[in-house]
């Protein structure tokens, strides 16, 4: 069954004994997107990405890459169009950066020219002849990204790529990743436990909590949840709701409150007058603002660390 998404998982589940790390996860990564896969530590992000890459066998469910259901026969062929950086970078410390990339380039079967290009992209050109054991953590992380970029794959899977980097390194890595879809037409599936990071980089977001995907949409739509609202507590909620709707205000009812999008002060005053005129008592008028952090915490649970 052909789909529009570059990556799709259907009821993807991973269970270790009685512990369910990933639970019936349905992820959809559209082409050209930077998909931020967000969740607290231990939520199941890495396990999900490893299952997509075939490094961990799913207990249940299936994965579709590039419109093709992944199986043992076509897995390597599909992964040939994919680059990955999972957790820490993989490297041979006793070899130089260039020698490391040459090994990956040969195994990927891509052009030798790609090595020069990816080294330029990650700004490791000058350190190409240096042993990787002598690289800083940031340089190793950039080498990992360079290895993932070799062959300029259609899909890049990056698991917490800014882990362990200093603030300057984090910013540099973010800029680099953000530039890739436009420059090379790549789709990026990126995991992080930092909301601010996903907010700065992604255009689509999936939030996972205890192995369950609790939210998946565009980042814009997540931001929409964080907009300011007016909350009214009145004596006759149902009647008041109908009156507001008659006045063309899209209001909703939640926990005994009427909620509607922020309007100017005059409009609020008119509404109050109108409700009182209809013998509805007004108990409270509140301005509510839900930050992105509040939304994230309400989705992932406050007990989980960020």
């Amino acid at each position, binding site marked *: 069954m052909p789909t529009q998404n570059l990556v799709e998982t259907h009821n993807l589940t991973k269970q270790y004994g009685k512990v369910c790390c990933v639970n019936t996860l349905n992820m959809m990564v559209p082409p050209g997107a930077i998909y931020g896969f967000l969740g607290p530590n231990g939520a199941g992000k890495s396990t999900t990405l*490893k299952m997509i*890459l*075939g*490094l*961990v*066998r799913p207990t249940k469910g299936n994965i579709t890459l590039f419109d093709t259901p992944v199986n043992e026969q076509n897995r*390597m062929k599909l*992964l040939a169009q*994919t680059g*990955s950086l*999972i*957790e*820490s*970078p*993989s*490297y*041979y*410390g*006793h*070899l130089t950066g260039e*020698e490391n990339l*040459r*090994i*990956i380039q*040969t*195994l*990927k*079967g891509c052009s030798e020219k790609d090595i020069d290009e990816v080294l330029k992209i990650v700004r490791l050109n000058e350190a190409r002849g240096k042993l*990787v054991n002598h690289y800083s953590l940031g340089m190793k992380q950039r080498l990992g990204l360079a*290895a993932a970029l070799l062959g300029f794959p259609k899909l890049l899977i990056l698991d917490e790529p800014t882990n362990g980097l200093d603030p300057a390194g984090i910013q540099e890595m973010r800029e680099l990743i953000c530039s890739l879809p436009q420059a090379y037409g790549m789709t990026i599936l990126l995991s992080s436990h930092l909301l601010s990071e996903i907010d700065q980089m992604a255009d689509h977001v999936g939030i996972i909590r205890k192995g369950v995907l609790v939210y998946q949409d565009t980042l814009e739509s997540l931001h929409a949840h964080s907009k300011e609202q007016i909350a009214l507590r009145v004596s006759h909620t149902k009647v008041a709701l109908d009156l507001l709707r008659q006045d063309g205000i899209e209001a909703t009812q939640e926990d005994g409150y009427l909620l509607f999008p922020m309007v100017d002060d005059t409009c609020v005053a008119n509404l109050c007058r109108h409700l009182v005129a209809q013998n509805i008592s007004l108990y409270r008028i509140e301005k509510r603002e839900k930050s992105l952090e509040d939304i994230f915490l309400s989705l992932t649970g406050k007990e989980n660390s960020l």
Partner: protein
Amino acid sequence: MSTLQMEFRKIKRKWIGLTMCALIGVQFAWLLWAGSRPNETERLYGWIEMLYSLPLVSVIMMPTIMAVLASRLADVEHKGNTYKLLKTLRRPGALYHAKVVCGGLFILAVSSAQFLFIIALGYARGYAGHPEWKHYGAAFFLNLACCLSLYLLQLLLSMLFFNQMVPLAAGLGGSMLGLVLMYIKMYSFLPWGGFLSSAQVTMDWNPETRVIHFYYREYSSVELCALAMIFVWILVFYGAGRILFARKES
């Protein structure tokens, strides 16, 4: 082919060849020391005696050498955490096979050096006649097979355990076992006992005349079974390694 080529690129600056030379050098030193000044009788039986000594040296030295070789080849992957990247580029079976072939080529080089050395040593000491090529060829082939079975066992352990002390301890344990259990028949059925079951020469020692008589032995059916076990171990360790490596999640 490119996977195998990469195996050799990966071990650049790891000096595995040099390590092998150093370890095999110890064997050479031992053989040089043993019978360094042969008399006429010893020269007469020199070639056959060499075939008697070689499995004894191998049973003690080779388990350790194979453990070191397998550990060096597997450790480059563990240190850089590379399996999770390599398994997205090649099937685990192909990666495992490349490690087997790479190590196999080292074993071929080590075994060849070993045999070339003892032949050169025999001529240098002036042993009578020439080596019996049929027996020397068989010894070379069986020695190679024994080394391969031990290498496959060690590779399996080295690839599965991050801490290389586990496989190295197994290799050293195999050598120790060789020293302790060398003369127990059942030992020949163990992977480390292959060198003994493959020995073609045995000896009689007369305590009165103190004369040692070396001769080519006739294999009993039990000894033939022990010999066949070498090849069974090769198949078992190769199959187990390939399956376990493929199943291991990164």
